[in-house]
């Protein structure tokens, strides 16, 4: 067992969407390296409650790295210092040797802060609504084996589909672009024969919606891929561009 840690936390506090917000510093002593970052935040909140203060609000749900609900920027890194990992799976031992942690919410105009570290990622759902589906009503499906899909295509589609919609790509992108998120969905369906009939319309509508939501443009910097807890490749962004250009010129 390694030694417990003492930390100074510099956390973004914001009462609501209208509030300007500011950083507040808290001390956390005797933090076990075996607890997760979010559990450390839980402990801070227990302390604050006992001190008659309002807890720091942050989002999390499954706490096993798959639901995409959690997400914080710690010391400038979306989801913290561990690659291919969501915030909830980062344990305090990753911060060994550090004394001060700066904790911020996802920052982009498209994700307004609701309170403290909680943001509204509804813009991503809107992109999905714009075309992230295959138009088939329940009961219309042919037998599953009526559609053959090459294993390579299926595997690539799964790589793209692994996106958990956490928004880390947007948070990490210097331009606050949602290209990786949008591209992952467009890619998944573009790779599968089932997605074929709607591919042009889908690419056009989803990209258009992405622009409407106020995300920045993609400059091919690749920070998104580095921050993505599911390691989704920017080759999907290239595929989205092919799909879109197909819609533009075709």
């Amino acid at each position: 067992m390694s030694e417990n840690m003492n930390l100074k936390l510099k956390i973004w506090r914001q009462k609501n969407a209208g509030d300007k917000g500011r950083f507040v510093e808290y001390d956390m002593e005797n933090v076990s390296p075996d607890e997760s970052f979010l559990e450390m935040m839980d402990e801070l909140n227990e302390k604050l409650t006992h001190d008659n203060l309002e807890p720091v609000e942050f989002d999390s749900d499954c706490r096993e790295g798959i639901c995409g609900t959690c997400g914080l920027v710690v010391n400038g890194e979306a989801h913290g210092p561990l690659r291919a990992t969501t915030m909830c799976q980062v344990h305090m031992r990753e911060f060994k040797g550090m004394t001060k942690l700066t904790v911020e919410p996802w920052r982009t105009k498209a994700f307004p802060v609701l309170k403290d570290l909680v943001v509204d990622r509804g813009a991503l759902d809107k992109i999905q609504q714009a075309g992230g589906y295959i138009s088939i009503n329940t009961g219309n499906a042919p037998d599953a084996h009526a559609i053959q899909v090459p294993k390579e295509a299926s595997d690539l589609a799964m790589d793209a589909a692994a996106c958990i919609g956490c928004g880390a790509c947007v948070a990490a992108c210097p331009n606050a672009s949602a290209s990786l998120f949008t591209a992952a969905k467009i890619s998944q369906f573009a790779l599968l024969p089932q997605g074929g009939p709607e591919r042009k319309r889908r690419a056009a509508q989803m990209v258009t919606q992405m622009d409407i939501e106020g995300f920045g443009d993609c400059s091919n910097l690749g920070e998104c891929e580095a921050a993505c807890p599911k390691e989704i490749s920017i080759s999907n962004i290239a595929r989205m561009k092919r799909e879109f250009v197909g819609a533009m010129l075709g």
Partner: protein
Amino acid sequence: MKLDSKIPSGPLAKKWDKHKFELKLVNPANKRKYTIIVVGTGLAGASSAASLAEMGYNVINLCINDSARRAHSIAAQGGINAAKNYPNDGDSVWRLFYDTIKGGDYRSREANVYRLAQVSNNIIDQAVAQGVPFAREYGGLLAHRSFGGAQVSRTFYARGQTGQQLLLGAYSAQMRQVKLGKIKLYTRVEMLDLIKIDGRARGVVTRNLVTGELKSFTGDAVILATGGYGNAFYLSTNAVNSNASAAWRAHRRGALFSNPCMVQIHPTCIPVSGDHQSKLTLMSESLRNDGRVWVPKKKGDKRPANEIPESERDYYLENKYPSFGNLVPRDIASRNAKEVCDEGRGVGASGLAVYLDFEDAIKRLGKDVVTEKYGNLFEMYERITDENPYKQPMRIFPAIHYSMGGVWVDYNLQSTIPGLFVLGEANFSDHGANRLGASALMQGLADGYFVIPYTIGGFLAKVGASAINTDAPEVKDVEKEAKDRIERILNIKGNKTVHEIHKELGLILWNYVGMSRNKKGLEKAIQEIPKVREEFWKNVKVTGSGAELNKSLEEALRLADFLELGELIARDALMREESCGGHFRTEHITEEGEAKRDDNNFTFVSAWEYKGENQEPEMHKENLEFEFVELTQRSYK
């Protein structure tokens, strides 16, 4: 109260078809006159909301999370069963039905389970058509595997993300309907109560989790697809926001609650590392295919695993169950782990863990093969525990995982409140006393895609469309009750946080209503839980206000309901004087120490009726009739 399960007559294989034909239909042009409220956006909620909207109904869909894609259905890793018989290995609808009934230890309805097996195939078709990227073989056809000890290969999977991908499939269909305006989706909204008018479920009162605003929605029917109640135990593999309040509020309004003691405990979870623990992480059961479970023979042996010689290790599952070995069903593996830890032979700092050792597997298969099969799980384990499973055995311990019990529903998935339908894990219907691997996803989607679209039509066609004004006094009354409850909690200003009190409840439940139960312990739990409840209402501390985002308040409201539900779990467990599936009473065991059912006296579903705060609930029985399968004792020796 007479419970009518509305099971259609006739041969098992024809029941569902016959029933579908007999259900009244809503004219296509009239569907738009009906409004259906769907609470929940997991597999059952999303699939039902999308399907009903596609049919033309107006759907109001309420989601507790920030997005409809987050529900805990996403956490299911292993797969989804279907009786496709693609591998030509002898599977059939009948076999899936039979396995599920038997796996549930004969405490579920034949007709429901048969229907589940029947529609299992349609689910795979539907998901593939939606673009769910199931694993495939080089020939381009679907891959499948044998899972959870099944004798046939019927589990379809999408890498380790089957639940996630199936939910995203349903979510995509749902998003399409949101865009078309047929689904009105409200996110970050939590149901606080059920509105009943003239005996019918007509709406729900909700709290906007961002602004705190209370708002009522009314409609022609209400569907609850709100998941299970595992979080009553505080520590479980459920998501931190998973709760039972919607179901419990419906129960308080008159919906009977069935088999609450049937809770599944999963054997391969990562052990608790300290007081800070907020939830438990499950690792796929597939680990037991190659990992060997053991503990030291000596009590309190604190040597590192590699210093304990082979002769001093007890591979207790292999020794006790020579034919199934490490692959015994979940309940048996869990119980045995608890037993050895109770004996003082548990490992790790807390002594609450057993080893799952891959040393032999690495020797036999090579490290590469082990990495290929379990690499991602090993990584996850190492990330959490900081221990390398290639070098030292994993430590595992059982954890609360799934609730088979839930709101009582009939064959139409309708509760005892007319117009209130309950789907997925929130109902009790299909898994009996124990759920088999890869069948939770199957049930959620079966209910949502292929059952409710038919059965709700039968109900709506009968009652006709009618609107309820949200200013109606019946609505306002329920709203006021909810408002008062919130204010009451905020005004307590006590000394204990919600988590502290929840931990107390969890500890009582885990110790006395957990993996093995006995009369004395259960009676103690029934005594202790009301005390914690009292403590809560006197001494809970929630800071902040009700008119803003306030997670402590959300959690307090949920805990208030868990504190009532917890007691019912204990009461149900005390009533059921037998051992079956997830419910293990130490008084009822075979000579070999295994679960012993009492089919003469307990072949029934308990259905509890709420009688008021701090009043003893009344139990009703739905007797289970087995026309088509013969009851046998499970044996894994």
